[in-house]
Structure formats: C-alpha cells, structure tokens
C-alpha cells in the first residue's frame, strides 16, 4: 500500500481551490433560498452574508461577521463551496469561521475594519483566505500574509464598475511594468510599492500574480463581468448586483454565461436581453471619502 499520510491546509491545497473557481462567478447570498437560486444559476461558490454590501452601505454603523446560524443554514442548503467574511484584522472572527467549516474566508473591507494597522496572519489557518487589493503592492502584501486568492476591491455596493476597472488595470499594468524591467530596478520598485521583494521577483519572472485574481466591487451586468474578464481577471464576485436587481434568477444565469463566453459578443448580446432592471447605481463622486470601502486596509 502507498503511504497514506494526508497533509491538510497546505499552500497547494489552499491555492488549488481558488484555481478550481476560475472562470466562475461567486455570488453574495443572505438566505438559503438565495443560495439555492445562485447554485441553480451555475455559481461556482456563494458568499454567505447577513446583508449585501448595498444594504451595509445604507445601514451605516459597524458591520461585523454574519451570525453563524445564517452561515450554517447556507452551508446546508448547497453543495458548492461557501465563503464568509471576517473584518480586516479580526482573527477571532476568522477562527470562528474556520471552526464552522466554511470553505474560504474573505478578509473584507465591506465589513468595518477591526484593526487599522494589521491584517490577519493568514498562514496560521488551514482554511484559505481571499483579500481585496487596489494595486500590485497591496496584492503582494496580502499574499505574503497568506492570502491564497486576490480580488479587486472596486467600490462595493455601488453597482458601478469603474473602481474595479481602475484596480484591475492598475494591477495588470504594474505586472507588465515589472516584467519589462531590468532586475536591478526591482528592489527600488519593491520599496516604492511596499511589496515583498521575493514575490515581486516571481511576478517579474512569470508575468502574473502567484495566486488567482478575481474582480469584485460594482459588477452589475453580464457586460460588466465580461469587461473584467477581458481585462485579465480569472473570475467574478457579484455582491449586491444579483439580489438587488429586478430578476435575480435571470441575471445570475446571464452573468455566469458571460463569465464563460466573455470573448464572444454575439453570445453576450443574446444573454443580455430581457434581464429586467439592474440594481440602482451609485456615482462614486457622491460617496464621501470616509464612506469609501476601498480605502479600508492598506
């Protein structure tokens, strides 16, 4: 018989689940019924929440980890992976989520940060983490802390894709920049970006992030999803965009199809028809600086 020692929670295993989610859509859900709609529409995972970002934004106050009973009910309702959010720096919320058995933890700026200086030491956990980033330096800092998956921050709960586009272009542009740089210039760029040198070197050599990179924050239509995919992301998070729209079932299904067929305008045209009204959008300039979620974390 072969050696049957099972190594759990390794970097390969953490990163590997994100690899399996690629080309898919991860949907925010707040009830088991919504989770089933998401699964039925072809979501590759769901994010279990108490409130979607648009409602968190509207409610104000302190947003925290969801009640475990909500998360457990959603885990019981579907067979696809279930993610849940912990506050930035709140490693005890993360410990609780790991104990519940969630498949991925999002250390998320959508919730009110618990620590303004330090993110969670994600290497200390067996469960993998996804974190938001606006640029390459931020992405590499999170990966160095143990994030096995990265997403753009965008501006959550707005239905406005402009910030996600900005962050994806920034990351992809910086990757192209370091790729074309002579090696001796990388150390000073690492200093300037606040990026760990070894990881920056890896990016310069391979031309991509060491982990999967999804788009998130403001995606509301199939065209938004396809735009982000064409800009080079690996998959899509949709927060408020589905269950704040008029016809969540149809929209969820269309966004899944758009994420697969992102390069085929004829199919995109077909699946964009008759979806009903999208979620109401928010102009970024109308959001006061202290209400901007993307500036949480560093």
């Amino acid at each position: 018989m072969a050696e049957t020692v099972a190594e759990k929670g390794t970097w390969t295993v953490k990163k590997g689940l994100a690899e399996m989610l690629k080309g898919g859509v991860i949907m925010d859900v707040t009830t088991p019924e919504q989770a089933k709609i998401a699964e039925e529409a072809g979501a590759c995972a769901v994010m279990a929440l108490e409130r979607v970002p648009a409602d968190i934004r509207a409610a104000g106050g302190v947003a925290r980890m969801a009640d475990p009973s909500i998360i457990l009910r959603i885990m019981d309702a579907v067979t696809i992976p279930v993610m849940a959010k912990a506050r930035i720096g709140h490693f005890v919320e993360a410990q609780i989520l790991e104990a519940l058995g969630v498949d991925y933890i999002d250390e998320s700026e959508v919730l009110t940060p618990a620590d303004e200086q330090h993110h969670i030491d994600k290497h200390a956990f067996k469960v993998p983490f996804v974190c938001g980033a606006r640029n390459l330096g931020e992405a590499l800092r999170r990966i160095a802390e143990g994030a096995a998956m990265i997403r753009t921050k965008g501006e959550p709960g707005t239905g406005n894709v402009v910030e996600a586009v900005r962050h994806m272009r920034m990351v992809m542009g910086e990757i192209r920049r370091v790729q074309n740089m002579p090696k001796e210039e990388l150390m000073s760029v690492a200093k300037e970006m606040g990026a760990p040198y070894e990881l920056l070197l890896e990016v310069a050599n391979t031309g991509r992030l060491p982990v999967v990179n999804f788009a998130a924050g403001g995606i509301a239509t199939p065209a938004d999803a396809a735009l982000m995919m064409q800009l080079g992301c690996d998959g899509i998070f949709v927060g408020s965009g589905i269950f704040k729209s008029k016809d969540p079932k149809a929209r969820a299904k269309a966004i899944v199809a758009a994420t697969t067929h992102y390069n085929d305008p004829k199919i995109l045209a077909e699946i964009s028809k008759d979806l009903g009204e999208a979620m109401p959008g928010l102009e970024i300039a109308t959001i006061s600086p202290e209400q901007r979620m993307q500036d949480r974390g560093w």
Partner: protein
Amino acid sequence: MQIGVLALQGAFREHQWALEKCGVITRQVRKPQELEGIEALVIPGGESTTIGKLLNDFDLMEPVRGLAREGMPIFGTCAGLIMLAKRIKNSRQETLALMDIEVERNAFGRQVESFETDLELTVLGEQPYRAVFIRAPYITSVDNGVEVLANYGEKIVCARQGKFLVAAFHPELTDDLRLHKYFLEEVAK
C-alpha cells in the same frame, strides 16, 4: 495531435500547460463547433454543477456524448470525473454518463479536509504520485470493464474504462506529467 480542453469553468489553463509540456497542441472548447477536429478531450477540475449546467445551456452535452461513443478519448479530473460517471450518490445532477462508475461528491468533506498525499499508481511506475485532493469526490463502486488504477485507503480515486480515464485528484496542479502522458500515450493512442 490536437487536444480539446473543456473551458467552461475551472482549471482548464493548467491542463493546457501540462498537455503542451507533453508536446501536443490544445484548444479551448466552449461551443459545439470547437469540438471539430480534436482527437481527445480533457474535462478539468472546477465546480461540477456549474460545468454541467453550462454543458447543457450551450448545447455541448449531446455532441460530446456522440463523439465519445464514436471513440473520442476523454480524461476527466475531479469535476471531470463526476461528469463522466453514470451515477452520482444522492444526486440527480445530469452528467455525460459515459463510465460505469458510481461517484460521491465532496466525499472527503469541506475545504479544511482537502489534502495532498502520495499515491501508488502502478501504471505510472514505481515512484509514488503526489496527488492533490480538493473538495474531492471518489468512486464508490465500479462495474465490470472498469479498471481501478489507484486507491486511497479503501477508496477508488483513479480508474479507466477503455478510452476514458478519470482521477479524483488534480494532476494539473503538480509538475508531474506522468498521468497526462499516460492518457496521451496509452489511453488515447
């Protein structure tokens, strides 16, 4: 030799890299017309419910079944294994239903139970094979005509039936090309 890689969702890129390292040309398959001219198909790991729905929605289920019945070799890993199985425990999920095996989904538990281990895979030689299991299924029973290639404990995790090869783990996530080579040189030959 051109090998199609089903690119609806999941780790299709990694399969392409592994196949290209083995010296073959690959093509992403998302639509029925992209099946034309391929000599074999790889169905990657990913979310089997997502891949199954997209196979149906974009009219790939019947064309793939048709080509498989005419002898097209198929290699399925993880979600790909599920798609090839005739029976799924506790589920009525539609699959390609090409192999006489019964499969249990998420059979090792949730992500915190995902693991890597060394397997004995004798068709690949003496050297153990590093296998990565992610929310993996396993094969609960096989009918006559199915050859079991690897077990993890009592559980069947790799099998072959004629031109079809399946693994519950992810050969596309390691640098070991032996299982891809086995598919190209032995199964698809």
